[in-house]
């Protein structure tokens, strides 16, 4: 800064556009890659070509989607899978996170490693591992047969296939988010609760859960967003019909060659995801305010 007079006169004019430019790049990218496809998808599905060549506003494709039994059963299948996965994730991950937070044994480090491990396994590999282990004539089956027990009813190609895969896939993120929430619960707050007479259940219910309710909301929103529009796991592990929205869209587009129907399905999926997203935004905002 050798010439203050020059800088003093130049900066107010020059710096402002630079700053705007920096912000503009990501904004434009988001607009181009996210906002525009959404708008265009909504526009494409909201207009029909009239016989005389013009176009008119029509919600025909949506009314088809919401009156078509197959589409609806796919949607409810997706909602069911998402709900069951979210519930199972909580049931599985909360104890793991509680153990990791409050145990001071050396085993905890290994458990944490194990819990995070699924993050490094691509879902395609996970799918085939699943088939090898739980599929017909998989490891579990062979083991049972070798000791003279009957075949298992494999979850492969049933609605439970994607559920098991998706839960496994989402354990790391859920555990990590819950664990970070539990980091805010101080040891002394927990010990003070035990001191006034709180047993394990009262401690969990009155002290720990209220303190991590936000983290639970965030963890569930994250998991639900991913699961609702999942593709690979439901495609490989799930039943042919009804199917989850991900494989459904892909099949409508590729095999039935009905792009407009596929886009409609995408917009509906997006609509649900936005509701979950709003949950997430709300809980983050609440967190900030607190």
């Amino acid at each position, binding site marked *: 800064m050798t010439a203050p007079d020059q800088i003093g006169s130049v900066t107010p004019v020059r710096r402002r556009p630079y700053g705007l430019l920096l912000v503009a790049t990501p904004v434009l990218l988001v607009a181009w890659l996210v906002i525009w496809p959404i708008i265009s998808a909504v526009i494409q599905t909201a207009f029909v070509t009239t016989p005389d060549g013009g176009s008119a506003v029509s919600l025909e494709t949506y009314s088809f989607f919401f009156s078509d039994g197959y589409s609806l059963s796919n949607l409810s299948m997706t909602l069911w899978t998402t709900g069951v996965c979210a519930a199972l994730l909580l049931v599985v991950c909360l104890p793991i996170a509680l153990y990791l937070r409050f145990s001071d044994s050396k085993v905890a480090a290994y458990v944490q490693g194990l819990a995070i491990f699924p993050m490094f396994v691509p879902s395609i590999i996970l799918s085939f591992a699943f088939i090898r282990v739980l599929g017909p004539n998989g490891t579990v089956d062979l083991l049972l047969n070798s000791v003279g027990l009957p075949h298992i009813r494999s979850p492969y190609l049933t609605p439970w296939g994607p559920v098991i895969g998706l839960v496994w896939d989402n354990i790391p993120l859920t555990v990590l988010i819950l664990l970070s929430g539990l980091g805010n619960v101080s040891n002394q707050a927990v*010990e003070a609760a035990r001191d006034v*007479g709180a047993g394990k259940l009262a401690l969990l219910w009155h002290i720990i859960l209220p303190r991590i309710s936000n983290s639970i909301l965030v963890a569930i929103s994250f998991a639900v967003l991913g699961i609702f529009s999942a593709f690979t796991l439901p495609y490989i592990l799930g039943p042919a019909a009804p199917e989850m929205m991900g494989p459904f869209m892909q099949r409508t587009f590729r095999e039935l060659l009905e792009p407009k129907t596929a886009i409609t399905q995408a917009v509906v999926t997006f609509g649900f995801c936005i509701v979950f997203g709003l949950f997430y935004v709300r809980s983050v905002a609440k967190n900030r305010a607190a």
Partner: protein
Amino acid sequence: MSVLKIKDVSKIFPNGTTAVDSFSLDVADGELVCLLGPSGSGKSTLLRMVGGFETPTSGLMTIDGEDITRVPPEKRPTGMVFQSHALWTHMNVFKNLAFGLKLRKVPADEIKRRVEGVLELVGLGGYGTRSVTQLSGGQQQRVALARSLVLEPKILLLDEPFASLDQHLRERLREEVRDIQQRLKITTLFVTHGQDEALSMADRIVVMRDGKTEQIDRPDVVYREPQTPFVAGFIGTMNLIEGVVSNGVFSKAGYATPLPVSDGPVTLAVRPESLDLSAVSQGSQGKVHRVTDYGTHGMVDLELLDGTRVKAMVPHPDLFKPGQGVTLAPKAIAAYRDGRVIHRTGVVATTAHPALVDA
């Protein structure tokens, strides 16, 4: 009527640290005992064992004769006040206090009555609906104290509850806690590493070092008749001079004083207020290094001929100048050998702990 007995309790952590080593203590009904010691001396570990948060490796603890050694904290008749961060921030003040009572299925109107009574007692009447995060540090610790008191525990445990507060507030809360404790006549174990806190609050002080007891006595006795050089050096200001006795005379680098003990190495202990100084021009035993005037009195830092530092309290600091030669005349001394006191003379009945002014 609650009596706490701790007998031969030890705690060895899994990593091999011996935090508490065969510790024994009886706390009488309504008594306030301070555990005093430097950081790492095992005070918190001992308190946490009494509260049930750590299990002793060996030993026995009883409250009113009932063995509580392995009883979990939620079933113990003890109440603990932690250093900080122990309030439940998702509950307001009233709910923090009411939680324990609700767990005990106390009827709602009685909960209300008891909570309000205790809030009044700790000087927070009408604060029930406040969020605990809106309170100052001192108010938060009052709430923490009230939360324990409202359950009427047999033994109250406090682990450096004022450590995170500023000096002024600490002194005020110290008095308040002492008042409340005496009013409720509640048996109390108080952990601190601050000697002034222990001296001003305790009925008895337990000086701890490396998990062991150094001395258990009334505050004035601990101050005037420390049993070990460690206690002597830890409580108040004490000059500890290492020297040798031969033929009944202690000597150290030109300084000599009669000391009727057997020959051998000795640690001589003299409080600054028990050490008279005279300015001399010849035959000096030491040299003034610095003079500090505190208004009510002065403190002279002096050096013996070999550089050993000694402090002396003087009524007229203006009589001494840096570099000046002085002679020393101790009014009361103690002598230690092998960590035990072997001789003590002229216990002076001084006013309350004057050496604490600069502590």
